[in-house]
């Protein structure tokens, strides 16, 4: 028999979910409005503000930059994060305890501080290109997610399977791709998705690492909002929500939605 819950609590929870979903419905509605100003409920339905996104050069460019940064930094984070997670599970005794603390640091240090420090002590001090600094910042930001998710799936991996493959003559690299990687496949997908979406949405690091000609989509959105109050921002927001839905659908297909609750 399930526990009875007081109706007042159920009513309260219903209100909370209206509070959570309502504002996003409002953004969707305003994006479809045919007016030149932001309004809700929409007056006349139109998709012209979606066309306007691609008519504005700055949006086209920053969407491209955001995707590039997200793809590259996610790829690099997986490339260095998977071996690191593997090393920490497989060779735990060889490695010092502070290593796992080191990999949590990007979560502890405020993103704004990381962004500013990269600008000041990398981009300025060593004349590093802004794009490179942006990639470094985003890779560091998402590395803890990658390591945490991959380590969690390695925790249930039986390393004796790997030893069996090696003792039967399989070379180490081949063993990695044919034995280990298929076993942590769902972890890799989850890490990829979390990392990608975190990078695309990032403001606090990117805000310092945008220069002449280089900006990411969220930073461009902020800049646009300070000058204009038209539905373009709402339609870009809807595009980002569509991306979120796509991501959730991929997670659902590959891992099941229960994964999201963890």
């Amino acid at each position, binding site marked *: 028999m399930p*526990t009875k819950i007081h109706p007042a*609590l159920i009513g309260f929870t219903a209100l909370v979910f209206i509070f959570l979903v309502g504002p*996003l419905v409002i953004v969707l509605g305003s994006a479809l409005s045919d007016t030149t100003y932001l309004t809700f409920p929409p007056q006349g339905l139109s998709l012209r503000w979606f066309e306007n996104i691609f008519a504005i050069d700055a949006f086209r460019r920053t969407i491209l930059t955001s995707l590039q940064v997200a793809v590259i930094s996610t790829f690099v984070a997986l490339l260095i994060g998977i071996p690191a997670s593997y090393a920490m599970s497989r060779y735990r005794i060889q490695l010092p305890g502070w290593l796992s603390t*080191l990999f949590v640091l990007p979560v502890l240090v405020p993103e704004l501080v990381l962004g500013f420090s990269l600008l000041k002590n990398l981009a300025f001090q060593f004349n590093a290109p802004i794009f490179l600094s942006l990639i470094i910042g985003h890779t560091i930001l998402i590395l803890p997610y990658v390591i945490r998710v991959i380590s969690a799936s390695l925790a249930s991996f039986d390393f004796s399977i790997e030893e069996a493959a090696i003792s039967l003559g399989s070379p180490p690299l081949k063993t990695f791709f044919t034995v280990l990687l298929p076993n942590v496949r769902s972890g890799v997908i989850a890490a990829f998705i979390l990392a990608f979406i975190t990078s695309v949405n990032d*403001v606090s690091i990117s805000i310092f690492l945008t220069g002449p000609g280089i900006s990411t989509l969220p930073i461009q959105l902020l800049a646009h909002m300070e000058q204009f109050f038209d539905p373009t921002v709402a339609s870009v927001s809807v595009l980002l929500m569509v991306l979120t839905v796509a991501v959730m659908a991929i997670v659902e297909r590959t891992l099941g939605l229960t994964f999201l609750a963890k």
Partner: protein
Amino acid sequence: MKRFAGWTLASPATLLVLLGLVAPVAATIYTTFGTPGGPFAPYMAFFGSGFRRTVLLRTINVSLAVTAIALFVGFITAYVVSRAPGWLKSILIIAAVFPLLTGVVVRSFAWLIILGKNGILNSTLINLGIISEPFQMLYTQGSVIVAMVYLFVPLMVLTLVGVLEAIPDDLIQASASLGANSWATFTQVILPLAVPGLIVGAVLVFTGSFTSYATPQLLGGEQVMMMGTLMYQQAMVTFDWVSASTIATIMVVITIAIVMAMNAAARRLNPMTV
């Protein structure tokens, strides 16, 4: 060869964090101590300025308010979600995850539409005849708090659902059958078992609010400046990098101090470890 296998595999990630995070952040902190006016001059300047003290206090107040509201709202919501039947639970969790995966700019922007001078709330109140003039809601501390609560409630709910799900139904029924009313069950059984989760949630929300940038920038502007927006202004508008580094150092120290204090508290308060 085998002896160094672990280090070989872990070294790229280790080097990236050391060179890309530890070194630059340490350099930022270091520059605040080597200034001409003496080792603590930038901190004396920070705490000597009434405006900056106000910003620090406001940031602490806003973060505390957001944490308290998110704890209250998140706890009740997570409790109901954790006891919901399977299909409904999945829907509710999706409804909480979706805003979480939607970026902070989009979510703050939504409140710009709602709270603006000609926004939905003002026009609804005028249409209902409750007010006659639009009410200034944007660029107030209240608007920043509302938007941040919106930002962090999903995080709190998802953190707590797992913890509350782990409390078996039997335990709650046992408490009821032994004569505890639902208030006593709540305060003496559920709440103590949820403490570790509440602490984790509170740390996430407090540090997130304390170091936020986009939300105070959009909904608070110049009028409701917080540590994040002040730091950005010092770094990128007035180009006073020593001052920006000082604010950065204060943010790092407060964040790490809170995480460590909460870790210690979690260990002491967790009923499972006694």
